[in-house]
């Protein structure tokens, strides 16, 4: 065990006890659309190759390939939808927490004192649903930055204002 006499283990503020908040339900729609966009090209390619470019091809292959593609699509979509509930965030007194990932779960914590700057971005799709992405940059490698997608714009702006004030306090 670690040598640490200063604080008793059960007095440490634990992340487990923090209630993480989910992101906006509207983000599910973006997940559906994104999944469709990923699979639209292979579906189109499959249909075109059998019915337009090569109309006398054996249709058994078409059905076989279509089934495989549909299974992939279903699995992809299921993982994306189940993964939605894992996308959670929280703000504590001294840090920001964000978790995501169904198969590869990852929970990252960035202390306020290590935030370099914050960005709000809205993709074309997100704007339609009034959603925004909060990007929290640290000085670490790009993988250590926090990216919270699918926040209601209002919430994202509130968080941005709050975190910015926290950063400025330090200076």
């Amino acid at each position: 065990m670690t040598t640490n006499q200063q604080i008793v283990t059960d007095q440490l503020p634990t992340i487990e006890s923090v209630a993480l908040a989910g992101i906006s339900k509207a983000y599910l729609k973006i997940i559906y659309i994104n999944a469709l966009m990923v699979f639209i090209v292979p579906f189109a390619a499959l249909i075109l190759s059998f019915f337009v470019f090569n109309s006398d091809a054996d249709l058994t292959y078409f059905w076989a390939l279509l089934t495989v593609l549909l299974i992939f699509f279903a699995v992809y979509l299921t993982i994306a939808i189940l993964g939605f509930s894992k996308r959670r965030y929280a703000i504590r007194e001294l840090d920001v927490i964000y978790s995501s990932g169904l198969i590869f779960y990852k929970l990252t914590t960035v202390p306020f004192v290590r935030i370099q700057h914050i960005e709000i971005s809205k993709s074309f799709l997100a704007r339609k649903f009034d959603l925004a992405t909060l990007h929290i940059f640290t000085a670490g490698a790009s993988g250590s930055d926090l990216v919270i997608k699918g926040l209601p714009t209002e919430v994202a702006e509130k968080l941005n204002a709050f975190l910015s004030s926290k950063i400025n306090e330090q200076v």
Partner: protein
Amino acid sequence: MSKFDFSQPTRQSSKGIIVIFGLQMVKFLKNGFIFLIPFIIRFINKGSVFGLNLPYVLLIVFGILALILLVSILKYLNFKFYSSSEGFHLEKGIINKENILIPKGKIQNVYIKQNLLQQVINVSSLTIETAGNDNAEVEISALPLDYALALKKELMADRTTEIWEDDTIVYYRASIAKLFLEGITNNHIKSTIIILTFFIGWYYENKEFLQEFKLNEKVNHWFPTDSESLSTIILINLFAILVMLLGVMLFSILKTILVNYNLTVTEQNKNLEISKGLFNKVNLNLLPSRIQSIAVKTNRIKQLFQLHTLHIKQAMTNKEQKDKLSVVGLNSNQVDYLIEHMYSDFKKPKHKQKPEFYFKRLLIIRSVIILLVLNSIIYLLNDSSFWLLNLLVVPYAFLFVKYTYKKAFYSVEENYVTIEHGFIESTMHILEVHKIQSVSFTQTIFQKRRKIASLKIDTASSSVQIPHINDEHAKYLMDYLLYNLEISEKNWM
């Protein structure tokens, strides 16, 4: 205080023309050489290019050289610098004039370097590094050494007044013999594979070009292969591998000596400075506030000779300097001493912990999968002699699993995180808790079933992992690290 006057706009030493000319030539050749190769080959073969014979070609070459020289002279004439109370001023540019002002407070570091040309004409270059991206750098390419040192003193004067007193202690100097030993004990398997893949790639890209040399006939000439028996093929391959290994070793020794020539670590009061290099002399300051993490590396053979390499990772250094921040050929006492210099309250962890057995199981599963894939390829190849590969690969996989697990350790203490890993090489990472940028808890669904998780710790210069530990413990360590990080008053830079 100084015998030089820095307040007047000055040009660099007139030898600077030579240095600029050299740099421009290198740049020109680097960018243009590939395009020139076909012309050169045609010229050598036929004696003329585009119907132009030797005198004309020489004329063109001289014309290009004269043009580059002209540009170099203009660059030299239009490059002036001076220092004022505001900071360091630089004017440059032939057509597009640039006026640069660097406030002294913003200067992060000043480096003095000498490349081969600069050594020959006895000047040195001075680089001023500021906070910000890689482009925020200013380089003066030709100054007399004493002038450069005085300028460095002037620029750094604000911050480090007491450091410039002359109590420099040379702490460590690597001898040629040590560098030779260091080069010969490098992990050659890795570099052989890299060189091999590089050659294969290069061969396929330049196949047609190479065929002009009629390599095949020459090889056949050296090794008459009328008897294509298995033993001759094996012999030829063994010979080729042996030659390549020797080449790789030679290359590695040469590289180690060139890069680390006259490697010295000096101590100025509390600051460490590394200088090294034959053709490219570098002089690097280690600023304790900028050190993000350090790593001590060694391998089995190096351990026998007491050779450790200390890598120091600083924030905001460009790629080139990042690679050079290492000291080779240290024995363990010297390693401890240098670590103590950077981390004054660091103690070797008493209670080292190991990843869970899950880690070993994962390594076994991965090795078995790779072996299965390899053997199915061999099966498809339908050539029985390839089965012999298993004699090599299976023991390798066995040793890989055994030692990778055996060497994995971690320790999390109030101020320091220490992580050890490796197979042939051993690496020990040490980082200060207050340098951590973020902490991540990661868990795959396979890990979750067995209550296992990993911790990823990011600093401004690298990211390290504590792999496959009990998930409750991982959560505890995360809380513990964050707590210590957040109550710490110290900044990461």
